């Protein structure tokens, strides 16, 4: 380092006014030096935790850890805050091994190092042991197309089972403000009111599930998470899943980042709007949404920002998603359009296809999967249904789709929709 020259006033940290500013905070444009930034970042997450009573003294909480930036920063910050503010929480790292060579095995090495660095217990639950199938073998059997669906269903259950195994009823994930903003926009595009209602809540739990999930980074900018990791020299893993590379291209993610460029506060402003939406959705939608809870959809879900998968998992949408959404909507609309009376001059419309009512969230009664005991609204849970298909080497089994309460991440329901369409097209709906 060259000897310290006097720093021009315009380059000074706006907080301590002594060090050189290195960070421009997206939500306030405030210019901060490194120590002031780190401390502001940490204290805001602390404020989020305190204001929402996220943790209770003496509890054990699992951190869904993928080795990626979000969960790594989450683990690091939680350890710091736990010590600094005496939360009295025992944090455990919970990782999912999907069984993807050249990707997950490497990122798990990162998690293993993190466990040592943060002095946290690490539990790894693998698809192989839970389901008898690794993602490598799933892809070998069904090909790359649609593999994220399997991965998503498997992951959601795996996280629950991992937590259960640890005797833990609270899993924190690394979802950040960008993820939530994207999910809000995607749910608007998709017209998914139940998810729009709940996607901004910091904690999602339900009476029928023993495991709550929460997002302590919900107000943290992805930019600041990366800067935090960078300035703290955290050890994280940033390779794309080999089965869904470059999922961010052409997606709502691109729109979010463009908005951030135009007005950096936009991301938090969207989260704020999303919080307003959740109060603006009629109680029926809430109620039915709340009742349909529980089991994850066939969608790629959760985990992400915590337990892996940057495609859908963190609420990120993939480029192909819009196309699938359009197809799903068009199918739905051709039913709706038929109900509009034909114009006088036009020959009476022949009934178009079958009239499809807009998908309503059905009320569901939850019971245990007859095969594995996991909570489900069907006889078999989704994982078992998929497994049945895999095991019979008849991969494209249709899965009855319904919304799951914690299934709020952007891509999930859409993929379910798509999946249903593809299946319908292929005429193999069960």
């Amino acid at each position, binding site marked *: 380092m060259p000897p310290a020259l006097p720093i021009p006033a315009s380059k000074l940290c706006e907080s301590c006014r002594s060090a050189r500013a290195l960070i421009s905070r997206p939500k306030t444009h405030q210019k901060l030096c490194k120590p002031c930034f780190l401390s502001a970042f940490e204290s805001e997450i602390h404020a989020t935790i305190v204001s929402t009573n996220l943790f209770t003294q003496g509890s054990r909480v699992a951190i869904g850890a993928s080795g990626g930036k979000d969960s790594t920063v989450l683990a690091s910050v939680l350890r710091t805050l736990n010590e600094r503010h005496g939360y009295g929480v025992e944090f455990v790292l919970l990782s999912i091994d999907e069984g993807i060579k050249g990707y997950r095995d490497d990122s798990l090495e990162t998690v293993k190092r993190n466990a040592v660095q943060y002095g946290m217990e690490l539990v790894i639950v693998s698809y192989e042991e839970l389901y008898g199938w690794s993602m490598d073998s799933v892809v070998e059997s069904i090909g790359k197309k649609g593999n994220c669906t399997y991965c998503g269903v498997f992951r959601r259950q795996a996280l629950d089972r991992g937590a259960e195994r640890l005797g833990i009823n609270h899993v924190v994930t690394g979802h950040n403000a960008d993820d939530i903003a994207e999910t*809000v926009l995607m749910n608007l595009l998709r017209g998914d009111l139940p998810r729009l209602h709940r996607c901004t809540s910091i904690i999602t739990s339900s009476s029928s599930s023993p495991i709550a999930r929460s997002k302590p980074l919900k107000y943290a900018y992805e930019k600041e998470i990366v800067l935090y990791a960078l300035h703290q020299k955290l050890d994280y893993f940033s390779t794309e899943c080999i089965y869904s590379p470059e999922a961010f291209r052409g997606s709502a993610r691109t729109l979010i980042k463009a908005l951030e460029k135009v007005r950096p506060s*936009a991301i938090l402003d969207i989260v704020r709007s999303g919080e307003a939406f959740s109060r603006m*959705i009629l109680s029926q939608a809430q109620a039915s949404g709340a009742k349909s809870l529980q089991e994850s959809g066939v969608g790629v879900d959760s985990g992400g920002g915590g337990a892996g998968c940057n495609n859908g998992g963190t609420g990120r949408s993939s480029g192909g998603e819009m196309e699938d959404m359009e197809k799903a909507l068009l199918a739905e609309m051709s039913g709706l359009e038929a109900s509009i009376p034909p114009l006088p001059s036009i020959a009476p419309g022949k009934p178009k296809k079958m009239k499809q009512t807009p998908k309503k969230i059905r009320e569901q009664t939850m019971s245990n999967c007859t095969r594995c005991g996991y909570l489900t609204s069907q006889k078999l849970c989704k994982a078992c249904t998929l497994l049945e298909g895999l095991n019979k080497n008849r991969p494209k089994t249709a899965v009855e789709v319904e919304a799951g309460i914690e299934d709020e991440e952007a891509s999930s329901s859409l993929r379910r929709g798509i999946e249903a369409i593809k299946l319908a097209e292929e005429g193999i709906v069960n």
Partner: protein
Amino acid sequence: MAEQNIISNENTVPTLCKRCSISPSVINLRTEHLCSDCFDKYTRSKCIKRMETYRVRYNPPDTDTSPRRLLLPLSFGVSSITLLHLLNSQFQNQLARTTRTGFVLVVVHIDESAIDPTVPPGEESMRAVQERFPGLGEYLVVKLEGIYEFSSAVKAFEIDTGGGGGEGGDWKEKLKGLLGALPTPTSRMDVLQILRTRLITGLARKHACEAVLWGDTTTRLAERTLAETAKGRGFSIPWQTSDGDSPYGVKFLYPLRDLLKKELAVYVSLDVPTPLRPLCFGAAEEEGKRKYAAVGKGITIDELMTQYFEGIEKQYPSIVANVVRTAGKLVTEGGVVRIRRCKICGLPRDGGGGELVLDAETKLGESSSEVNGNGNRNRGKKEGDSMCYGCARSVHGAKPYEWPL
């Protein structure tokens, strides 16, 4: 007329209209190819369906059979010209069938030449429009700076194209000062939109109109839904996109809400009976602005959303409609309450922006006080508390300005 470029270019062989099976198709409506006649009928039916409330009233059962007064803001863009044309057809039909009409229009163009000298004042365009659609009602051109007149409600409002008399120059400067004080292009565009809405609703009340008929298409409503979400104004989306009572004391109606922007772009070139395009004096300007916006950093959130939905509309029209349907299912908290209005947009406030302003002042310390020209922190808090979050965000960091309302 061959199908326009918006149609998938797969088929070069002329496709027949799916409804009449006689004429060549001019447009592909998602799944249905239509000829120009059938497309015209389709477009009319979409608008008429929304205008059902304003059919001719009979006595009985209606007690009051006089035509309702409706205000139509006309920007000379594709949408508002199309809406005027469609309303005119409906009006003429009513007249022909019953010798009476269910409504009369007050057509208003807001002259924004004060803030953009390249924009023509609009009288000439208005005259051309009036010649094409005579007898529908009144045609007015109102200067945007006239909004400063509303603050002193005692004075009569000069609707005249001559402007606001002696004080006109003063208002113009105030308006320019206001927009110039705002920190970013996004803020300026946001506040400009608010000024237009407030002027138009003020005029509607003044002219005893019971509703404002906005020209917004499905596409535009979807853009607005996402743009307002991104500006932190999610709470106000029902007031900005749905038909019915607005908090401004007049009803809002969006008769083109079931039509896409790209559909209207085709429609204005059809012979109905002669193309509407030549009347769309503002359209070229809209396109020009868009191109300009695409370049460089000066783009606003609204423009970004316009671009985004242009892409979406091309490939995924059902998604556009779905956004609007979704927005329609949101209900405002507490309905149209009359208390706690935002002093900028005039809508009932959400939690408010006090926190935002105060937060920023505390954090920015001196520099912010310098900018505001005063060191009084309470003022910031007070101001923030009298604004909704979205407006507080837009005027955050602004230089001193005089708010007209």
